[in-house]
């Protein structure tokens, strides 16, 4: 649990929401918000926000096994947006969550612009604190990254969702695109309040004996420490666009330690996503929080905001 002094140092405001800590538990890693509470010592209170599993209008069974495999310093996943549908999430799951613990963010997905809008409409009429627009899922045949890699389509999705809700909108950007800055600009124009940077990188692993891809979906999304340098650069690039608009970023990709989290804050993120690291250590959040607080103290900084985007580039 976050100690009192740490809590004061680590708290911040993100799109009008109070985040008790800068950590955001990432969509797809923590189910619908209750799964990790099985672990003694784990608390959602150690995270500023928890992003729920990607949700579509209709229930989805997701992809066939294998859905995950380990790769050097990382893992590939292709879950395929398995979820019980937006109506079920709002009616049956959200009432079981304790909204005093943290901010809960819905992750909305779809195969068409209209589906994104409809899912957003359903979540708009719910206690959910914010919505993350998932235009970067690499593991579905339609929608997802097919939208996220095209700035024009990304903007159309954001615009359609914006029309449905006043809740904070966070657009989750794909690293699998040519110009992430142009995409960010278009999404800001379309009404995005914040960004999550980045989603997984598309990847593959092959069993050489059978000569088949290990992942049932053939390809999947790479996460974990292996992608951290990519994520840091993308975060910094998007920060260049966001700074003048006062738009905050959740920086994410391979964060495992407090030092990783600090790198993202310095690169321009206002909050830091933790995903794959939970698989390694379900109690990692309190360690990262403590490490960030210790750093702030050591550098005589009163609040994290002083750190955000404080990168000193080489000449």
């Amino acid at each position: 649990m976050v100690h009192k002094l740490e809590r004061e140092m680590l708290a911040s405001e993100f799109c009008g929401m109070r985040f008790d800590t800068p950590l955001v538990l990432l969509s797809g890693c923590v189910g619908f918000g209750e799964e990790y509470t099985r672990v003694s010592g784990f608390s959602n209170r150690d995270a500023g926000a928890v992003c729920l599993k990607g949700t579509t209008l209709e229930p989805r069974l997701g992809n066939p096994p294998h859905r995950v495999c380990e790769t050097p310093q990382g893992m590939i996943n292709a879950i395929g947006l398995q979820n019980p549908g937006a109506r079920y999430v709002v009616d049956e799951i959200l009432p079981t969550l304790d909204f005093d613990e943290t901010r809960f963010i819905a992750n909305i997905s779809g195969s068409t612009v209209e589906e994104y809008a409809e899912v957003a409409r359903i979540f708009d009429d719910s206690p959910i604190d914010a919505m993350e627009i998932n235009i970067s899922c690499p593991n579905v045949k339609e929608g997802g990254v097919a939208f996220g890699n095209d700035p024009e389509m990304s903007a159309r999705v954001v615009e359609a969702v914006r029309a449905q809700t006043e809740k904070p909108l966070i657009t989750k950007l794909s690293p699998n695109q040519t110009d992430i800055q142009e995409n960010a600009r278009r999404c800001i124009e379309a009404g995005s309040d914040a960004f999550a940077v980045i989603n997984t990188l598309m990847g593959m692993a092959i069993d050489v004996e059978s000569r088949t891809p290990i992942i049932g979906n053939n390809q999947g999304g790479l996460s974990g420490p292996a992608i951290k340098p990519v994520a840091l650069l993308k975060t910094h690039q998007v920060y260049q666009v966001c700074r003048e608009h006062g738009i905050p970023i959740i920086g994410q990709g391979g964060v495992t330690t407090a030092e990783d989290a600090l790198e993202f804050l310095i690169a321009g993120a206002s909050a830091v996503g933790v995903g794959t690291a939970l698989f390694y250590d379900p109690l990692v959040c309190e360690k990262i929080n403590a490490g960030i607080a210790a750093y702030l103290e050591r550098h005589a900084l009163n609040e994290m905001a002083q750190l955000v985007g404080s990168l000193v580039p080489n000449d």
Partner: protein
Amino acid sequence: MSQAHRDTLYVEDARILAREAFDGDQVILRLHAPQMAARARPGQFAHIQCDSCLPLRRPISIMRVDAKAGWADFLFKVVGEGTRRLAERRVDERLSLIAPIGQPFTYQLQHRRPLLIGGGVGMPPMIFLAEEMHAVTGAYEPLVILGSEVPFPFQSRPSQLLVPGLPEGVIAAMPLLDDWRVASRLASLQGYPGTYEGYVTDLARAWLDGLDAAARKEVAVFACGPHPMLEAVAALAEEYHLPCQVSLEEFMACGVGGCAGCVVPVETPRGPAMQRVCVDGPVFDARSVFPPA
């Protein structure tokens, strides 16, 4: 609001108390993990960090626990990078584990003649289940059939316990089980002495055929092992109209229900579903995994 699942899993830095290696790249580790040892049930597993440089843990099923002494035994076979590194760990080193995870086997007194079938690294949960059924409850008469195509991770010996109906000469047993007065027999295609030369399901069939109708009604089947073996066991149970539970494995990431990475397709009363091996399983009703034609 139901939060009954909360705080049911423990993260422990478990010291390796003992390590024993066997032919066929098999290793048994005894770990000091008192919180999980006090709560573990047969069928459950631990999610073990094999090495600090690997990003994912590995699910390893629990073979025995001693709640009082606070230890748990794990048998595993080297099959990849994670288990290879786990096999290199030595006594007094510490391993991080999350445990006890998953739905355990369930059983009822109306089936007082449980048939437990374990193949390869599917043996451990069967040993745990046999110990609990027999030693703890005392009301059951399990028969344990173990199969392996590499040397068994124990020195087998002729059983002191008579099991009617089995082919002549099939007398090799697991000493630990024999000491508990739990009947066990071994099967392999490798021609090990006293071992049934054939599949575990063929030996199981011989035993079932030797039971009268009343006794057969008291049988329930429990199995863990390679997928083809489980499929054959499920078909056998179906043929003899016996209830059957199987324990599955799948590549796993979080181990606590968060990522849906370890799912298997199952049939449910509400239609097809993808269920997580970690927290919905690893024990499933055989009919949901292998729906009868």
